[in-house]
């Protein structure tokens, strides 16, 4: 594996941090939002400029400060990190546009604070993506937890504050209580924290200890919302919708699963997990989360809460993919990071657009909304197809690979879990779409005139929906990155 040293990863992380002073000091909203765009585009371009290098199989490395041997603040851009950074930085641009429409549409207060912490959160997300070791990852993981707290509690009312408390309790509680000691124990066992191609824990500890560490890491990164540490996610839905969209469908939760995937592949190594037979344990936890999450989603009336439970279930697809420990399964899991991101963010954008245009939050109040907001609901339909995993959407690709992976790993039960879960997904999404478009006129709750949300809200969700479709026909950027990573891990 070739490596080259470049400051680009650091720049990609810092670019959104550097604009925060400008954001704080700028009084005019236009100036502030223009700068947000500049940073978002700059970040995306920096990430993009590293793509050719990565595709050639070279890794980009940059060390900021070393404080212990093997435990430095260090960046390493590899295929998996690239995949994640690409997803999150491209979606930041779109979300920025959407935020402007949403926040101005609702005349929200403290918009400066909102944009500042959004920028912080993105720095942290890209930081996690490019981390070369557990310490750096933990650093940015915690930074993300703290940066999103003001976003979750944005409304400052009683509900927001109690949700904020729950959010911190789950996220910071598990990271300090489980992930931190697990990291320290690993360091004392192996003398390093540097992610390896086949992990660094192999041969350092007994099976029970490895099992304990696996448990601590799996649940320690509670942003992955693996049950039973999932209930912060529905609670955090009190945040403004763009926050829910980017952070709770893309950045925060994906940082959680990304961390879990990184730890499973880079700390334990798939060979170690396979030889100690820990794959089924991961599969069991992930399958349980998928099924229970989907069932709870069925019973939800609040649209955002439904999406939250759907997210909980979908996140575990990614963990499940890695837990299969077969090349195709891992590929499917990694690609699902991207596919789910584009699909789920569209759904959240739709929920937000509905709220901006009509003030409605509950599904029972959305009968006939398809006539009022046809574009939004069409996008909603496409995105829900992607989540269900049906063509013509990108979600099909990742789910297909997960199914292949489960066959490859001879895990027939997992195949059934995947299929059944798709059925459940359809069961909670399709009625919404159906009743939005095909209700009887007397049932409709809206007048029969087209009145969409502001263009700043609608255009982004159309873009993400279109991308979801394109990803079926052209999944190569993400797919190639994932296969490269899998090749490095499994050596095949």
């Amino acid at each position, binding site marked *: 594996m070739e490596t080259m040293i470049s400051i680009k990863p650091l720049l990609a992380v810092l670019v959104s941090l550097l604009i925060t002073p400008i954001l704080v000091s700028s009084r005019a909203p236009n100036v502030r939002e223009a700068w947000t765009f500049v940073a978002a585009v700059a970040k995306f371009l920096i990430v993009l400029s590293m793509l050719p290098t990565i595709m050639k199989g070279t890794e980009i490395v940059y060390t*900021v*400060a*070393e*404080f*212990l041997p093997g435990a*430095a*603040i260090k960046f390493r851009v590899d295929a998996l990190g690239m995949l994640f950074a690409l997803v999150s930085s491209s979606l930041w641009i779109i979300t920025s546009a959407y935020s402007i429409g949403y926040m101005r549409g*609702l005349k*929200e*207060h*403290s918009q400066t604070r909102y944009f500042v912490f959004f920028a912080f959160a993105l720095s942290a997300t890209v930081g996690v993506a490019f981390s070369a070791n557990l*310490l750096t990852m*933990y*650093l940015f993981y*915690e*930074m993300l937890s*703290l940066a999103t*707290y*003001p976003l979750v*509690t944005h*409304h*400052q*009312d*009683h509900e*927001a*504050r109690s949700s*904020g*408390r729950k959010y*911190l309790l789950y996220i*910071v*509680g598990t990271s*300090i*209580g489980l992930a*931190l*000691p697990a990291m*320290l*124990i690993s*360091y*004392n066992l192996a003398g390093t924290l540097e992610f390896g191609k086949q992990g660094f824990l192999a041969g350092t500890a007994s099976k029970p200890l490895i099992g304990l560490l696996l448990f601590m890491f799996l649940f320690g990164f509670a942003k992955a919302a693996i049950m039973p540490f999932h209930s912060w996610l529905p609670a955090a839905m009190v945040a403004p919708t763009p926050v829910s969209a980017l952070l709770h469908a893309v950045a925060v939760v994906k940082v959680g699963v990304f961390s879990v995937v990184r730890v499973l592949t880079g700390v334990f190594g798939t060979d170690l997990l396979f030889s100690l037979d820990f794959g089924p344990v991961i599969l069991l936890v992930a399958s349980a989360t998928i099924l229970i999450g989907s069932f709870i989603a069925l019973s939800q009336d609040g649209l955002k809460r439904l999406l939250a439970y759907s997210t909980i279930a979908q996140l575990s697809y990614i963990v499940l993919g890695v837990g299969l420990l077969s090349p195709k399964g891992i590929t499917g899991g990694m690609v699902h990071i991207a596919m789910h991101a584009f699909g789920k963010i569209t759904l959240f954008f739709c929920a937000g657009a509905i709220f901006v245009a009509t003030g409605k939050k509950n599904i029972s109040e959305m009968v006939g909304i398809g006539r009022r907001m046809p574009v939004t609901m069409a996008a909603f339909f496409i995105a829900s197809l992607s989540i269900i995993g049906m063509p013509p959407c990108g979600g099909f690709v990742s789910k297909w690979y997960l199914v292949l992976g489960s066959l490859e790993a001879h895990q027939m039960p997992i195949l059934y879990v995947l299929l059944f879960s798709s059925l459940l997904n359809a069961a909670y999404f399709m009625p919404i779409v159906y009743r939005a478009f095909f209700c009887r006129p007397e049932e409709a709750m809206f007048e029969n005139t087209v009145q969409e949300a502001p263009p700043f809200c609608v255009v982004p969700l159309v873009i993400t929906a279109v991308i979801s479709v394109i990803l079926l026909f052209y999944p190569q950027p993400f797919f190639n990155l994932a296969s490269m990573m899998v090749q490095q891990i499994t050596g095949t």
Partner: protein
Amino acid sequence: MSQQYPALLVIVPLLSALVISAAGWINKRLCFPIAVAALGVAAYSSIGLLLRVLDEGAIVYRLGGWDPPMGIAYYVDHLNGLVLAVVSVVAFLNLIASKKSIELELPDKTAPFYALYVLQVTGLLGIVATGDAFNLYVLLEITALSGYAMLAMGKDRAQLSTLNYLYMGTIGACFYLLGVGYLYIVTGSLNMVDIANILPSLYESKAVLGAFIICLVGVWVKMAFFPLHAWLPNAYTHGPSAASSLIAPLVTKVMIYVMIRLILTVFTPEFAFNILAISKPIVWLACIAIFMGAILALAERNLKKMLTYIIVAEVGYMVGGAWLGNRAGMTGAILHIVNDALMTLCAFLVVSNIAYKLKGYAFDDIKGLVRKMPFTMGALVIGALSIIGVPPTCGFFSKWYLISGAIQASQYAFMVALLFSSLVNVVLFFRVIEICYYEPFSDDGAHGHGPPSEPMAEAPLTMLVPLFIVAAGLVLVGIYTGDIVNKIIEFAIPQGIV
């Protein structure tokens, strides 16, 4: 000039304390510049001294040219070089920050206050620099007496709280003196290095054991190690802001230094860790201290008092770390002396800024404070992150070493205690942050739009700038932890400890 640093360090502040009290008779406005100059010289020489130690290794300085064991030697190595630098820098920054708050809180006592302040710093620097066990006692009492006087200048219950502190402080110092007496009987020497050379033949002696235990208990009283902590919260809470923000970061930390010095130099690690089988119980005690400190802090509804209980918990961190008996734990304890001094200073400076602008610092008084004092609250957030132990602030890295030490020593209870305390700190500080940022909140349906904005009323720049320096320091020390550990602390711990 640089040869005289160890003497300058102590003598300049000592003499200037006299000068300040004299100058107070002539013109009160002279006092502050003199104090600044004196502590500036102290800070300069302590940093110079640290750099020299890094170059040349340990320095022995004989006061007045008398050789030990007759004369008093000042002995500066990597360990106290580091602590000296921290003490003098913290004292200097706090002095700058305290000017306005002293003028407000003690308008007619500025001259005596500055004299006592400088005297206190003299004592602290002396304790750290001295290589003589009895000299240490005298300096201990100089520190304590000037501390009593400063704390007693506070309002309300300050005098009573200080009197309680005085009882306990005196008992602590007397115990230490008694322990030194036994040591003197068996070794005939008061010089620390000398004692350490004589002791190995006497390890079995009951008197040495007694001396060690008695010294240790004395030092514990002085550092407020649970359950000997009862004097600390009230005394620190009721004192004037400037006094508590000097005493809270430094006195307990310097006492930890004394304990580490007793273990490492006077009684030797061999004796403390191997011959005496008391490491485990002491680490357990430290765990209890951490738990109790955290729980007692939870019960407080007053920012300053809450911070004092956090100090009690932090003392547990350091005592436990030092007694883990391995290199990582000791590194963590020494690193935490540095970090905790800065963290506590940051938190207490915030409190004095609040006290400067508001009538109090109870939770009810600080509602919605962020709109009034955004910069102060920003610094509090950084301080809080460091106390919680979030990277890249320095608090994370000392906790890292402490937990590593706990794992290596198989003292998992200590690890659990540290994690528990981190979690409680999260609760403590986010409660404060919530109150400062989100209260008074409105519950008008789904969209609370917050209260109307209040005009900003920040503390003056002389208070803000030192606070920012400290807050930035928290992050910088965190980032340069590697250098501090590899270049300084690594040499401060004897090779025998692995």
